């Protein structure tokens, strides 16, 4: 292909006309622009939230651990035929 050919081809591009944009596009652009933005959560609030979730998880683990520990103790007491409470000093 000669240099002239490519110039002729590129000159053909002058025949490409400008296209009119569809009318509805402005409405769509406006919808996107003026749509209510989602409420922004600040970093401090995020840290508070994360800490609260971590605390809840820790509390949950502690309660579960206590419950299991108590159950284990009760099983031991039962297996050794011991009274679960000491009433030595209680008045009858």
């Amino acid at each position, binding site marked *: *292909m000669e*240099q002239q*050919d*490519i110039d002729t*081809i*590129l000159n*053909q*591009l*002058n*025949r*490409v*006309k*400008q*296209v*009119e*944009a*569809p009318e509805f*596009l*402005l409405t*769509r*652009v*406006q919808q*996107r*622009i003026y749509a209510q933005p989602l409420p922004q959560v600040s970093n401090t609030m995020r840290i508070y939230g994360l800490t609260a979730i971590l605390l809840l998880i820790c509390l949950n683990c502690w309660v579960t651990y206590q419950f299991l520990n108590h159950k284990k103790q009760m099983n031991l007491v039962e297996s050794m035929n011991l009274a679960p409470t000491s009433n030595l000093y209680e008045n009858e």
Partner: protein
Amino acid sequence: MKIEEIYNEYKHQVYTLSLHYTQNKEDAEEITQDVFVAVYQSLDSFRAESKLSTWIYKIAVHKCLDFLKHKRAAKRNVFLLNLFRLGSNTPLYEKTNFYHPGIELEDKESFEKIFTAINLLPDKQKTLIILYRLEHKTQAEVAEIMNLSIKAVESLYQRAKNNLKIILSQKKDSSNKID
């Protein structure tokens, strides 16, 4: 200046530019929306150092290239997915038809070949051809939009022309072989 005024002034240029890049109606509409949303969001940061039209063209070119990059990545993913869907005959991705209402119907076939060749150029060269030959911008304007010097634009244009020549002659050869 209100976004509606900017939109009314530049909507046709942006839409046409998007069509030059994509040759697809839906893609061009999506890019046009993206461009004006981006213009609205960064209108405060616009300093009158350059013309408003140059600034809008910069955003539009950036959005077009970004869109095409994502589309190419999506195509690659779909290709991989299709490889694993051996039983199914319907492809996940279907080639879109050439669409450019700025081209006369009788020219459509020849222009489709030229646009296919332009699409094969690297992004910078493609942008240069679109801005210089299709949008009829001056070399100085192209240089400003593309953040290049005029000398760089000149040499890039030569490279783009040479590459186009190679692509088109290869296509000519292959079509001759088929005939």
